[in-house]
């Protein structure tokens, strides 16, 4: 069995050493965010600030990265969350991960702080730290142009240098957006990481692996979601869908519906702007939009960006969204946290609590304000700190739309209450993906599990979280898991009696899902339909990996991250949402249009095998074979 090899790099001393992952760790934690969470627990002392010199950032891959498995260019960054103080993991589809592996490293463990702006080069099995003051101040695009085109690159923009709490890291045109990875790299004076080599990833059983990949890719291509809808409309296709179910955050989450939303929808994007669709390396889904911006063909916006630079600031100007999306990317700013902070600033203005010159519905000054925020000019420095810190200063906690400090994604949880639970408990803060993404089952997918009932939501959330964690840890894109809603429902459509019936039954399936999560060791089969990743992992690594073990991997990952959060001082109290979402009704005539967190949380803790204070029990940790991780 080939064990992952990491490089442990200390930027303060400029020294590095090879760091081999033990067989035990590889078997239990596989790679990606799961293994990274374990390493963060091991290698960092409790209570260290996220921007401290001794803070650690892990950039790593999973076993499937760069193997030819579909959508397998996603690499992971794990670090202490700059916005929440808990764990952060951020996933990116750029070429850096693929090339890092080819350079002979499965991951990098980076600590220390360089004396001057530096570049980390991982080339052909060697690491070199090289000062590069000339790159400081350049945007992400210009920085990457300074390196050979064939290198895998991961860089920060001016936002990371200036310590915007939600600064992102960029690889090619793909972004590790959330949680402030750019700020961490910036604090380490690490402007860029580059990797290149020609070492192909080793596969345990190449022939069997390739045979399975062929089957899997055909399955993806034939599935209506990954073969048709995502390539045609990208994630942007969700705008109209969310709007139709009142789940599209509008005017800083005051409402869930915006009459003009169609102007920034995926359909409009496809019909009027799309030049072509494209994708990350190795991805047959190809959800990326290529659109014209300033006369150039550039990356188009995702759903979140459309929602936040559109309806959530009460605007619907497609060209503004396209341009802001690009500018945020090259400056290295997370579009979700930034645009959500803008909406919060707009509401502060509306209520006369603060004036940043921002008003709902106005998009003319956005570019100018982005620059001021990136440069932390005057009061705009407050916007660079995100909604939680803005609320601490100006008030408005009840409508500062974040959980634990991380801004929520573009799904109105009052019309998707399971998503609300997910936002509240997600380890990295208000994230839809880390939160189990129940919105897909409740309000924006083809299925419509009753979006307003708390019933069954805790169990489905735990299941989905485990599945998504495992997919990430394996090194694949979460979109490759979108095939798990059987294609037949797309053929029937959302208004068919069958689809409706399934939606009705789902809330009652909670106990069954809970049972499934409890008998995982016994699930010794792999299903192309459910989670093909387990089978691919088995053939790539030679590990005993079936659906059950795969879900266990996800559960381990989720519990490790929870342990990290608890160690860093977060508690059950932090599993919360702003009062706008838990107290105020979205539709005053319907008492169910709020997130009944108080009903769902106890069930969730119970399903997870956690105590009433949200701490993983001894028994649960023993079951997962990681009792020692809580010490």
């Amino acid at each position, binding site marked *: 069995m080939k064990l992952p090899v990491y490089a442990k790099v200390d930027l303060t001393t400029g020294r590095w050493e090879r760091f081999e992952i033990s067989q035990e760790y590889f078997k239990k934690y596989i790679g990606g965010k799961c293994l990274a969470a374990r390493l963060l627990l091991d290698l960092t002392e409790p209570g260290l600030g996220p921007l401290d010199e001794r803070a650690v950032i892990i950039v790593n891959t999973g076993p499937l990265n760069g193997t030819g498995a579909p959508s397998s260019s996603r690499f992971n960054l794990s670090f202490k969350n700059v916005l929440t103080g808990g764990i952060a993991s951020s996933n990116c589809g750029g070429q850096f991960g693929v090339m890092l592996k080819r350079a002979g490293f499965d991951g990098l463990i980076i600590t220390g702080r360089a004396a001057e702006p530096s570049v980390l080069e991982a080339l052909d099995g060697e690491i070199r730290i090289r000062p590069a003051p000339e790159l400081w101040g350049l945007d992400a695009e210009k920085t990457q142009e300074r390196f050979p085109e064939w290198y895998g690159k991961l860089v920060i923009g001016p936002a990371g240098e200036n310590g915007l709490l939600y600064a992102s890291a960029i690889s090619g045109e793909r972004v590790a957006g959330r949680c402030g990875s750019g700020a961490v790299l910036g604090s380490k004076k690490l402007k860029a990481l580059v990797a290149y080599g020609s070492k192909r990833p080793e596969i345990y059983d190449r022939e069997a692996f390739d045979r399975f990949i062929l089957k899997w890719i055909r399955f993806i291509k034939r599935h*209506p*979601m*990954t073969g048709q*809808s*995502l390539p*045609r*409309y*990208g*994630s*942007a*296709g*969700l705008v*109209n*869908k969310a*709007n*139709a*179910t*009142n789940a599209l955050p509008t005017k800083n989450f005051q409402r869930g*519906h915006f*009459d003009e*939303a169609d102007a920034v929808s*995926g*359909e409009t994007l496809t*019909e009027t702007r799309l030049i072509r669709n494209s994708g990350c390396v190795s991805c047959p889904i190809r*959800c990326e939009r290529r659109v014209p911006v300033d006369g150039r063909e550039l990356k188009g916006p*995702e*759903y979140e960006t459309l929602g936040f630079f559109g309806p959530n600031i009460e605007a619907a100007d497609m060209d503004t969204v396209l341009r802001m999306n690009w500018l945020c990317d090259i400056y290295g700013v997370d579009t979700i946290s930034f645009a959500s902070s803008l909406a919060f600033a707009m509401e502060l203005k509306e209520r006369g609590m603060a004036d940043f010159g921002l008003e709902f519905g106005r998009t003319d000054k956005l570019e100018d304000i982005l620059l001021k925020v990136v440069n932390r000019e005057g009061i705009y420095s407050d916007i660079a700190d995100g909604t939680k810190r803005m609320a601490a200063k100006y008030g408005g906690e009840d409508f500062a739309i974040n959980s634990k400090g991380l801004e929520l*994604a573009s799904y109105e949880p009052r019309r998707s209450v399971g998503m609300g639970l997910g936002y509240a408990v997600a380890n990295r803060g208000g994230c*839809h*993906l880390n939160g189990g*993404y129940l*919105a*897909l089952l409740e309000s*924006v*997918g*083809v299925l*419509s599990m009753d979006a307003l009932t708390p019933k069954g939501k805790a169990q489905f959330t735990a299941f989905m979280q485990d599945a998504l964690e495992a997919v990430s840890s394996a090194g694949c894109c*979460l*979109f490759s898991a*979108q095939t798990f809603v059987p294609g037949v429902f*797309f*053929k*029937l*459509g*959302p*208004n*068919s009696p069958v689809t*409706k019936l399934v939606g009705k039954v789902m809330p009652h399936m909670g106990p069954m899902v809970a049972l499934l999560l409890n008998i995982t060791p016994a699930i010794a089969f792999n299903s192309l339909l459910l989670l093909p990743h387990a089978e691919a992992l088995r053939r790539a690594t030679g590990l005993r990996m079936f659906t059950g073990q795969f879900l266990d991997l996800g559960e381990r990952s989720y519990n490790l991250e929870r342990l990290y959060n608890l160690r860093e001082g977060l508690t059950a109290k932090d599993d919360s949402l702003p009062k706008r979402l838990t107290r105020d009704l979205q539709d005053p005539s319907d008492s169910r249009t709020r997130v009944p967190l108080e009903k769902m949380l106890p069930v969730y803790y119970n399903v997870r095998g956690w105590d009433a204070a949200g701490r993983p029990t001894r028994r649960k940790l023993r079951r997962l074979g990681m009792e020692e991780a809580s010490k």
Partner: protein
Amino acid sequence: MSVEVTYRGALPELMGVSSERLEAGTVSEVMAHIRKTYPRAAYREAKRMLIVVNGESIQLRQGYKTALSEGDRLSFLPICGGG
């Protein structure tokens, strides 16, 4: 009732039109019109799409029985995914 219907996704190509004004009292009547007027493939496709009345899915109303009022806007949208 005179309502305005917009066809998105694959429908315009299958039907040859992207919008029209219709007389219809319920969504079912619009579906019947599509079945009668356009090729079978268009009807099949329309049936599996997201149907939205004045921006709200008919799933949140009474499904195909949803009543239409004068001037309502009806759209057929493709089912999308992502995140």
